[in-house]
């Protein structure tokens, strides 16, 4: 069974100037363990696709199944729990919580899930796996380099053992060398841990990491 499946999915934003069709009938299945790139020009519907995959939004019509659950008709709490329990988000701007130390940022999703016992140890273990040294654990995110912040963010996304990672331009704010290191980390997680990765990017060089590249134009798969 696919981790993510779209069946005739449309998304329409009603605007005063007329409806905007962001997704115009998408059929798509992403299998467990795949590394999938989503590419396309601005306004092609990439973000909308990503939002729906991430249970941040629901389709106007069609059926979306994520980790075996249909998200149409879910209320806000149910969608939030989908995100918490099944999806790991990785953002272009890292988006760590500035008030929390690095290790606390990674611990946060565990605490949200009510797993207090051993949460610190689990967070440290995942941080070690993404290559954050022990000396950086208690630093605030702002004290780390961009590459280290993105590694911490990947640790946060992984800590609840999600069904898939959803990455939105994860190297967009990094220099080429650091970006390559982050891509290598994601590729390793995909190969060695079997993590499903879906990544939105503009960068054509990323295709070498992917099993499959989905191209979008005007709300459709090209």
């Amino acid at each position, binding site marked *: 069974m696919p981790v993510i499946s779209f069946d005739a999915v449309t998304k329409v934003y009603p605007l005063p100037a007329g409806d905007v069709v962001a997704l115009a009938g998408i059929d798509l299945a992403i299998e467990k363990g795949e590394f999938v790139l989503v590419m396309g020009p601005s306004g092609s519907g990439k973000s909308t696709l990503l*939002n729906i995959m*991430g249970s*941040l*939004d629901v389709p106007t019509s069609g059926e979306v199944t994520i980790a075996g659950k249909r998200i149409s008709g879910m209320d*806000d*709490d149910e969608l*939030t*729990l989908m*995100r*918490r*329990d099944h999806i790991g*988000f990785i*953002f272009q701007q890292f*988006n760590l*919580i*500035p*008030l*929390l130390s690095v290790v*606390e940022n990674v*611990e*946060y*999703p565990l*605490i*949200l*899930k009510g797993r207090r016992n051993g949460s610190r140890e689990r967070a440290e273990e995942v941080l070690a796996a993404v290559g954050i040294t022990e000396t950086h654990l208690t630093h605030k995110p702002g004290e780390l380099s961009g590459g280290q912040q993105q590694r911490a963010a990947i640790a*946060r*996304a992984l800590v*609840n053992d999600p069904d898939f990672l959803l990455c939105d331009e994860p190297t967009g704010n990094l220099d080429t060398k650091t970006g390559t290191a982050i891509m290598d980390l994601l590729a390793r997680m995909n190969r060695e841990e079997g993590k499903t990765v879906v990544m939105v990017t503009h960068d054509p060089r990323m295709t070498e990491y992917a099993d499959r590249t989905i191209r979008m134009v005007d709300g459709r798969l090209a």
Partner: protein
Amino acid sequence: MTFLDLARRNVSRHWLRSALAVTGIVIGVVAIATMGILGNSIGLMFNDMVSDVGDTIVVSPAMSGTGGDKLTKRQVDDITRAAGANRVITIPFASTFDKMSVGEKKGGTMIYAMPAGDIPLLLEKEAGTYPRDTGSGCMIGSRLAELNKETGLKLGARVTIGDETLRVVGVLKERGMGFDINPDYAIIVPYSWYSRHYDEDRYDQVVVKVRDVKDLDVVKEGIEQKMNRREDVVSVMDTKAILESVFAAADSITVFLLGIGAISLIVAGVSILNVMLMSVTERIKEIGVLRSIGTRRREVMRMFIYEALILGVVGAVIGGALSFGAGYVITAVIVENPDYLFNPTSLLYILFGMAFGIFTSAASGLYPAWKAAQLNPIQALRHE
């Protein structure tokens, strides 16, 4: 690390802003607590008066009466009989204002005269003895003694009134404002001396002390019915009734003062609302991140309510402590009795102020918290 922890960190991240919001709550709590204590102390003060003289009826000659403006010995006896001799103690007294001198120092003083045997029934002594009918001794009020300490008006001193000299044999205990006589600034002389000195055999008023407060109404009615059968000879003043209306006024004062306190706390609430709205606006992106990684609306809401509660609790605790000090100053300076602060009802006002402060803060945090929880995670994430 919990939501409370996150809230605490955010409060201390903007410590100046938080401190200002807390200051508002502190002022509000202090205002409400001290205003409450002040009103309550005024009430307690009246209450003490009621219990002091609640057993007292003052009988005066009726204004429109034909018997003149004084009461004869016979009328005093009639009043005693009318009241029921076994139910009451009647103390007739006369009073006048006269010049007096102590050594070189001259001045004026209030003089109360009553049968020497009755003085101990009405007044307590601080030092010395009570004067006797036969001698030329007098007593002085405590405040009068204090004010004239330097001029030598003290126990054993000689006081000249008119062309006669009296010796101070006793000093009275401070009694405070009363509805019968105010002896604190006065000289008390035996009626025998007064009668001879001023050539007067009548009295100005009669203090009727009821042995059992329950008999008060019966005694009052008895005097009015028997004395004023044909025409109004006397007017009867029941201090309890007067004080009860004063007491009701004290209650209104408390409510009014509490209202002033409450307004300042509401102003503080608005400043918390403002701070919290700022906090939400600044953290839209952060809220978007929290929501996208699985924080539920109610959890976001809880985090912000905790923030408001922290401000409220800190403000209430500081305010409560300061209220205690301010309450002491108010009771000591305005009602001149700091003991009123330690009355349970006064302390209750401090707790009430604190509770109201916390409640106001929490209530002010509700809307910003709700607003934060309602943010659309996609739009919040895009916010810069």
